């Protein structure tokens, strides 16, 4: 009896394939190419192909691929663009950052692309099996990237901590998947949804509820939500700054991508109330916990780590209402966050350049006098991260909080606004250091180390500044783009 092979519809996954194939090519050429920077630019080319194919697919009606394992709907494609932007900006930082530390290796770019591929798979997945595969492809590559700087002790430590806690979280996530499969009899997201709405599924089924909570634990770890955030500051501080920039946005966006689709498609209608309370609680403690911990930080990478936890909290506010407006606000936020946060890490990467300037915040004293443009860029990113107009961070917060207000959850928006006010203290603390404190007096014989900007990282900074400002003044293009993000 011959087995019929179903139509795979590989075209729907072109962006994912473009990225992974490029990764394999990069890995192959790593063996033969001496100037590894070429591999970085090759990776950018692969990302460009992925971006073009994503935009082209936006014009086509969404089609399921691989027997409804994945889909190329507007939601997945807009997310693809977020991941591509994140990866491209990070690669540009890496080209400078790795070059200065004699770390320029082809594997780095291959791993970064594999990780991006995993994120895309998480965005496009309509089956828990594919969600899990995407999660692992992304995470395993990130474990290695975090430990990439073998000469620095902290890097290996960051990789190890990330690996142990990440593998533990994946195991919990997986147990949750198994329980949901057992309760509903399917791993397909829509089939799970149907089981709850029309398939006679019991809304109080304990197996399904325990499964859902374990899934939430797994995702909360990946997006660094309190109380599953312990790893974040250590990993962000120890990992190479270019990697920190990449994972602070990419891994978070991918976690949200799969979480939102799961909550909306599988646990959408019948189940809303049950998870709304849990996610709202998660949002409140994440915002507050992240902001309060950030106040006490003396290292800028740790400060940005806690700030990224707080941002995960703001984004969760957009998830709570469970409306399509909320989802689109989340995507808007993530796209804006990609530019401003990677921009901030680019400044950190530049200043971390030489031995003299570490990542301690007090080392930023007097920066405005030494490098006015760089200080101005940092000022802009800090203000945008605080959420003040006229920068993209303001609109992100506005849309996310508006979604909460429209769903009659104004209290959540109020908590968010109060938290934004708290965050101003530590973001503006950096600005105060740069503009109002004099540089530490140099001792006799100690040379002031020049800060040099090399080409690629300057491009990242320029792009991040321009987009943060333009979208701040005129957010309509991004609003139009995210409005294409619907579930197919």
């Amino acid at each position, binding site marked *: *009896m*011959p*087995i019929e*092979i179903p139509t795979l519809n590989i075209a729907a996954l072109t962006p994912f394939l473009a990225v992974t194939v490029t990764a*394999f090519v990069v*890995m*192959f050429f*790593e*063996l033969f190419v001496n100037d590894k920077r070429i591999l970085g630019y090759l990776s950018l080319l692969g990302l460009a192909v992925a971006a073009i194919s994503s935009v082209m697919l936006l014009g086509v009606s969404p089609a399921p691929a691989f027997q409804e394992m994945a889909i190329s709907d507007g939601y997945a494609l807009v997310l693809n663009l977020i991941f591509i932007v994140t990866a491209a900006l990070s690669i540009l930082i890496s080209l400078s950052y790795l070059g200065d530390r004699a770390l320029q290796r082809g594997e780095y770019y291959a791993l970064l692309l594999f990780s991006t591929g995993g994120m895309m798979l998480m965005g496009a997945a309509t089956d828990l099996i594919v969600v899990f595969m995407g999660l692992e492809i992304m995470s395993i590559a990130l474990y290695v990237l975090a430990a990439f700087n073998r000469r620095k002790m902290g890097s290996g430590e960051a990789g190890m901590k990330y690996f142990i806690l990440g593998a533990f979280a994946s195991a919990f996530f997986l147990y949750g998947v198994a329980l949901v499969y057992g309760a509903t009899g399917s791993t397909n997201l829509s089939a799970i949804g149907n089981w709850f709405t029309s398939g006679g599924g019991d809304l109080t089924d304990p197996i399904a509820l325990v499964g859902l909570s374990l899934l939430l634990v797994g995702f909360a770890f990946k997006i660094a939500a309190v109380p599953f955030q312990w790893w974040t500051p250590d990993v962000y501080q120890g990992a190479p700054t270019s990697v920190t920039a990449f994972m602070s946005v990419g891994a978070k966006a991918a976690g949200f991508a799969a979480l939102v689709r799961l909550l909306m498609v599988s646990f959408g209608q019948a189940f809303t109330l049950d998870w709304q309370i849990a996610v709202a609680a998660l949002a409140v403690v994440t915002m507050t916990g992240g902001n309060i911990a950030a106040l006490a930080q003396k290292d800028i990478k740790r400060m940005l780590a806690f700030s990224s936890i707080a941002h995960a909290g703001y984004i969760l506010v957009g998830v709570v209402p469970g409306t399509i407006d909320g989802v689109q606000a989340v995507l808007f936020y993530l796209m804006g966050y990609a530019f401003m946060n990677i921009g901030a890490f680019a400044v950190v990467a530049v200043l971390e350049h030489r031995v003299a300037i570490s990542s301690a915040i007090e080392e930023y004293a007097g920066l405005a006098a030494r490098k006015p443009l760089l200080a101005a860029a940092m000022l802009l990113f800090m203000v945008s991260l605080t959420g003040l107009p006229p920068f993209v961070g303001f609109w992100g917060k506005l849309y996310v909080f508006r979604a909460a207000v429209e769903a009659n959850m104004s209290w959540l928006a109020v908590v968010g606004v109060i938290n934004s006010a708290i965050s101003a203290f530590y973001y503006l603390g950096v600005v105060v250091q740069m503009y109002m404190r004099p540089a530490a007096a140099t001792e006799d014989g100690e040379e002031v180390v020049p800060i040099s900007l090399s080409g690629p990282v300057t491009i990242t900074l320029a792009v991040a500044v321009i987009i943060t400002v333009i979208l701040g003044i005129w957010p309509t293009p991004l609003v139009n783009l995210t409005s294409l993000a619907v579930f197919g």
Partner: protein
Amino acid sequence: MLQEFEFLGVLGAITLTIPVVTLIIAWLLRPKKPNPAKQETYESGIKTIGDTWVQFKAQYYIYAIIFVVFDIEAVFLFPFAVALRQLPLYSLIWAIVFIVLLFDGLLYGWRKGALHWN
């Protein structure tokens, strides 16, 4: 439900019986002429030197890691092999793509010197 385990019990009994019977037959048939050299724990070869629990060379673990990865990937080929006769010919292409990707990994490991023992 215990009947389901009967089969396992019988299987276990048979697997235990066969080696025991073989050993008994060998014990009955073999000539018995002991001498000191035969009584040694390691009858052939030289005596062991030093502690048994030595630390392995780190390179050994790299071999082990590479082995584990490639060994496990074979699990994807088993279902394919079982269904091979019922599958259309072009499905073979996917198996070949899969093996080529594995080969890319092996080539990488080889060129990077992971298979080279110092």
